[in-house]
């Protein structure tokens, strides 16, 4: 057999230079989302003025901002108390969800005996339960926190169960062969494996906690964004309703972003982080 030499080209590859786009383009790219936002607010302001829409139907953005500037401590205080309730409810949901999730994933008996009852609570709309919360816990912070908890809890529980149970069985066997304790199996394999699942549940649970807190305040509280919404809509103060809705939205996005940031830092190994 003869070996045929391949024809060899002497061409060298050209390394493409690292080009930075000119700064105006970079500035545009960095700010374009905000530009769109500002532009739409401008169009909104203009449309309200030109079409002469009455304030109680759709207020102009300037009217909404004015509302905030007139009574900033009222609105920011309400934002603070809703934020507190949402964060507390969310934290409780994470703690209880993780503990129960680990228990369920590791003990089929607990799952069999407890899960059906939790499911009943889950499918009952929180709106239907919320009046009970005021009856049981009064009109303070507690029923609001519980409402936030109820909405945030189930996504966490479901994902933790999935995350613990889906740990690589062979990796668990590697640990068992090394004579690891059950606690080590949990700490070294099952919990780390559940982390991406936990964080993906936060993407649902964190905004959910804000919705739950608003709902709790809506149905029986004397502070918070949800409470102020009932008051403002009763007075046909549409600017205030818009403002309160906007503040709720900011709160939800803020909580969501904190979770995404944590996820990026803590589960950098997982492909979902690149999404």
């Amino acid at each position, binding site marked *: 057999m003869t070996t045929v030499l391949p024809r060899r080209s002497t061409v060298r590859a050209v390394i493409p230079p690292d080009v930075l786009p000119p700064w105006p383009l970079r500035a545009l790219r960095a700010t374009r989302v905000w530009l769109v936002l500002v532009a739409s607010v401008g169009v909104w302001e203009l449309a309200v003025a030109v079409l002469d829409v009455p304030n109680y139907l759709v207020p102009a953005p300037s009217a909404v901002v004015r509302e905030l500037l007139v009574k900033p401590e009222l609105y920011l205080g309400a934002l603070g108390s809703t934020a507190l309730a949402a964060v507390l409810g969310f934290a409780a949901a994470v703690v209880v969800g993780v503990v129960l999730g680990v228990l369920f994933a590791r003990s089929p008996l607990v799952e069999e005996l407890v899960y059906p009852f939790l499911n009943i609570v889950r499918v009952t709309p929180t709106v239907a339960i919320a009046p009970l919360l005021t009856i049981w816990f009064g009109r303070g912070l507690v029923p609001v926190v519980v409402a936030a908890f109820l909405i945030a809890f189930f996504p966490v529980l479901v994902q933790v169960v999935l995350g613990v149970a889906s740990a690589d069985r*062979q990796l668990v066997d*590697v640990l068992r062969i*090394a004579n*690891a304790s059950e606690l080590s199996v949990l700490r070294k394999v099952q919990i780390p494996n559940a982390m991406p699942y936990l964080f993906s549940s936060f993407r649902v649970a964190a905004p959910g906690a804000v919705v739950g807190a608003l709902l709790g305040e809506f149905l029986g509280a004397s502070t918070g964004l949800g409470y102020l919404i009932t008051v403002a809509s009763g007075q046909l103060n549409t600017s205030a309703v818009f403002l309160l809705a906007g503040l709720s939205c900011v709160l939800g996005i803020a909580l969501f972003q904190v979770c995404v940031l944590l996820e990026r830092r803590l589960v950098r*190994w997982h492909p979902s982080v690149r999404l």
Partner: protein
Amino acid sequence: MPRTQIAPAAPPGDAATADLVRLRDVCIVHGRGDRATVAVEGVDLAIGRREFLCVIGPSGCGKSTMLKAIAGLLPAGTVQGSITIEGRSPEDARRANSFAYVFQEPVLAPWRTALENVRLPLEVARGRSPEQRRSPEELLELVGLAGAADKLPGQLSGGMRQRVSIARALTLHPSVLLMDEPFGALDEITRDHMHTELLSIWAATDASVVMVTHSLTEAVFMADRVLVMSPRPGRITAELAVEFERPRTHQLKSDLAFHQKVDELRAALEDA
């Protein structure tokens, strides 16, 4: 050339205290009642210290099942007969960290770096004294991955990952290394490379190796002794001694004697 050494697997003499692993009349049944599967039947086997044993047989004949039984990974009640490792039951042997296991896939924790993966058994084991624990850094060097210590499994090639898993298996200084088709997922070039690498690693430790494989040449190249299993229920139908000189190099694979050995093994497998 006369056919040598193909003899029905006869249980060796009973004074088997020198044997590291001993299986007596082992039968393994998965499931019960109508859904029961007899995976392994009537296996009698002794593995000596520092022996390199290969097990070969058709797919589904019970090779992995036998390996798992030695490692005590099967549910209680599945294994009949007796299995001892260094005179102990598989459970006690596991408590003493007497053996390690390498799966067909690398089975690494994706959130741990190569070095942290190698260190994992050290963090959880309770059975080995400090002198019997090996440094993860040295083991990574042994498998040629000192430079990749801080990489995550996702950043390593398939062959590198499998080398990490072999290094991990060696951390607790096992007396027996159980390997279930460890190179099955690798390409031929990496495989060849891993063969000589595993042989030199094995020479540098004092472990016995039981390696399941689907490759005839791999079995002949690596082993002191090759066991042939029949289709399910798996029985050991032949045993072939391979007495080529060590250290073995890839040169051996072009020897006539090597090819004859492979042919002998193929014939034994067809008779099984």
